[in-house]
């Protein structure tokens, strides 16, 4: 539990004790812990996270206002990382120890080592301040989201690339690949028709989970690029001890995360004939 009394925050330190009590009663923080909890659970079921303490508006409204931006950012980020990682990973695996493989290795090492906020700042300084290709602040157009999604996507791409390469290398060492060659298929068909299909299965699962993580990663990037997304909303809520907003935010993110995982599981079973049957 976060220490501190929200009633105190609202009323101010030198408020009268009776005022504080009144605020506590209004907030419900004077009731026993268990009661507070059960009431809250009941509200969550109705998608009612209560009212934000600082702005006085319903928490669900606040979240839904900000969510589209964060989601767009995360989806752009994951798309970008898939677009980079899968082709490069596959080429690295097919032509092991070639130029592409070394390039991929360099990329994944760098991508994993560089923190995304740092990359964000670097991109801002270079492309927004020095060359002014992209806008520095604000939101509203796709242009505002390009740099943030690059900074978010690069690190994820690094992870996905390694995974794609490993998965593809593993598939290429499987026995059915020998069969495919023994059938006289061209290397192209062996690689892209036979092996790739199986190699992508784990990659898709991980990419889905990454999408969930990216919602979390967005918090920092939104800060760097001053985007009015969920991240900034929650950060603000924590500073202000806006408990309903914090709780609502946590539950909402958890819900989205599980939903994504669920969707990935469904997708996986559609793609994998072995699971499809049961």
């Amino acid at each position, binding site marked *: 539990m976060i220490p501190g009394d929200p009633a105190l925050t609202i009323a101010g330190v030198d408020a009268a004790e009776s005022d504080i009590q009144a605020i506590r009663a209004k907030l419900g923080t004077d009731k026993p812990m268990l009661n507070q909890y059960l009431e809250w659970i009941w509200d969550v079921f109705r998608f009612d996270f209560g009212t934000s303490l600082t702005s006085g508006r319903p928490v669900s409204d606040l979240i839904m206002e900000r969510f589209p931006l964060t989601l767009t950012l995360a989806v752009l980020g994951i798309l970008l990382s898939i677009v980079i990682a899968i082709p490069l990973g596959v080429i690295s695996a097919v032509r092991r120890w070639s130029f592409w493989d070394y390039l991929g290795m360099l990329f994944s090492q760098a991508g994993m080592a560089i923190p995304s906020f740092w990359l964000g700042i670097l991109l801002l300084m270079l492309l927004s301040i020095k060359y002014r290709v992209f806008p520095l602040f604000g939101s509203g157009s796709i242009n505002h989201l390009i740099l943030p999604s690059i900074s978010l996507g690069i690190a994820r791409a690094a992870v996905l690339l390694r995974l794609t390469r490993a998965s593809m290398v593993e598939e290429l060492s499987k026995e*059915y690949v020998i069969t495919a060659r*023994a059938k*006289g298929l061209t290397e192209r068909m062996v690689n892209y028709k036979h092996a790739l299909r199986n190699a992508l299965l784990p990659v898709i699962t991980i990419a889905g989970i990454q999408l969930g993580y990216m919602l979390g990663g967005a918090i920092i990037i939104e800060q760097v690029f001053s985007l009015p997304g969920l991240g900034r909303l929650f950060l603000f809520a924590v500073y202000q001890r806006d408990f309903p907003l914090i709780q609502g935010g946590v539950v909402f993110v958890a819900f989205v995360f599980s939903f994504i995982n669920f969707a990935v599981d469904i997708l996986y079973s559609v793609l994998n004939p072995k699971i499809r049957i049961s």
Partner: protein
Amino acid sequence: MTVSNNNLLEIKNLDISFIQARGAAHALRGIDLTISSGEILALVGESGSGKTVTSMSIMGLVPTPPARVNAGSLLFKGEELIGRPHAEMRKIRGNEIAMVFQEPAKYLNPSLKIGEQITEMLILHLGMSKRQAVEKSLEFLDVVGLGKSRRVLNAYPHELSGGMKQRAMIAMAICCNPSLLLADEPTTALDVTLQLQILKLIRSLKATFSMGILFISHNLGIVREIADRVSVIYAGKIVESASNKALFENTLHPYTSALLQSIPDAKKRGHRLRAIPGSVPDAENIPQGCSFHPRCALASDRCSQEIPMTKDYGNGHSAACHMVQ
């Protein structure tokens, strides 16, 4: 020596090693094999003796490096396969020489339907349209005893039982009507009751399509059942070759007879089995002289120093042993 032009496949003195960090593995040490059309040649040997390397080298699928062909030739229909360009080998593979593997569950692509795996070959090698290819695949499913079943065609491998998978794999191998079929332990992973069915199927293929078949196995019982001629391989060398009858009834090489004696059956109950002491040498460490001498009951001094030459004992029965008269 006669130049035999009716041989479908003629392997002469094939010698292959694998170059690795811890030393070379001498997988094949000069083997000779011939297969003619409409004949089943069995290649018998224990694990690591070089059976798979033999069949993969016929397909041109032994990766070089790590492998290196030290010597030898592979004549298919009178033409050399070794050193053929990749593009040409690809046209032969699956089309003229096809292969069936040991474990159908592993050697079929788990995420492609059986139909797709068969038709892609017909489309590639015979230039059929998709529809023709599907029709043709159904015909071949029928040939291998699965019936003209669209259910099988639309099934993923894991939806079929082991025996059905192996039949599907055989259908895949024979659909382009190859003249040579390499079957690498096609029944080993199958249940006893299914083994026999697959053997029958292979025998009927020989008769209907007059294919030459290289049947690889480590089971002498099965080999006796199916082969016209048998070659026994030990540590990358053919130690005895003969017609089926001659090999089993007039065994020459001590290794072959030791193998035969070590098979348990009800008649030997109460007696100890004649086990072969020691174990199969690995290809990195092949004994001097006759490679079998550390395990051989007949071995003499000569055996540990001098490699026995392959000698012909008449009627195509040959063996490589100092002690065979």
